[in-house]
């Protein structure tokens, strides 16, 4: 009985969540030496996909070094977000490019 209540609560919680289901791909542009949008909120299990529209290579590098992707001009790069938290990130080559990823459970 107790297990059923927990399962129901979890199911209701998922239904009530306004965010997209886990496994969604969220695009972020690297354009004009900036990340757009600058702040993105996703869930654990979602994939972030950076599309580099600039003439130079960029990285998306978590400041805590927990993830990084290198993206050549005209190419895309993906990272699956595996842990909840708030991550400030930069391009290592151009640290004036900054962004924030919020990963909800």
């Amino acid at each position: 009985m107790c297990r059923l209540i927990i399962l129901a609560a979890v199911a209701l919680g998922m239904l009530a969540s306004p965010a997209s289901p886990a496994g969604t791909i969220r695009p972020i542009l690297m354009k004009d030496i900036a990340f757009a949008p600058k702040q993105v909120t996703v869930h654990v299990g979602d994939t972030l996909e950076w599309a580099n529209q600039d003439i130079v290579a960029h990285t998306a590098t978590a400041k805590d070094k927990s993830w990084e992707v290198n993206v050549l001009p005209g190419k895309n790069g993906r990272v699956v977000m595996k842990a909840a938290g708030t991550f400030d990130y930069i391009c290592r080559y151009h640290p004036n490019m900054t962004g924030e990823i919020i990963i909800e459970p």
Partner: protein
Amino acid sequence: MSKLPVTLLGACLCLAPYGAMAQQAAKLTDPQIAHIAYTAGQIDIQAAELALKQSKNKEVKAFANDMVRDHKAVNEKALALVKKLNVKPEDNDTSRQLTQQAGAKRKELSTLKGAAFDKAYAQNEVAFHQQVNSALQNTLIPNASNGELKDLLSTGLKIFQGHEQHAEHLVQSLPARTGAVH
């Protein structure tokens, strides 16, 4: 384009040439502006190539590789643009002074070795990008007439502002200078 060794563009722009450049600003044409920007890019590529030859530091080499890759990319775009616009970049007093100063700075840096070279190169990269960015922001971009050239210079400015920050991080990560080692 002849080989343009490492230089402190700041020296070129802050000393007599900078005053001259400010005075000349109204006279600079797009072909001259394009040539100045291209020359600055070539100078930094030459600096990076010297660093790749002289340095054994992993971070310094990585930074130098970044500079070669980015400045080549920007200069390739610049060449494509002047070709499209059917204009020929023009050598001028400012670009000639840049080239001249580059020779002196390259000679100075090439006498350094090890940590002394690494620190001097990184500090030069900070100063170089500061001055390039200042010249782009205050002189070259405002005086460019063609919209596409102005856009490319503006993109270059953002890229080089990134390089400036990157170079500052590199300087901070290296041990303090203890004097030149010849």
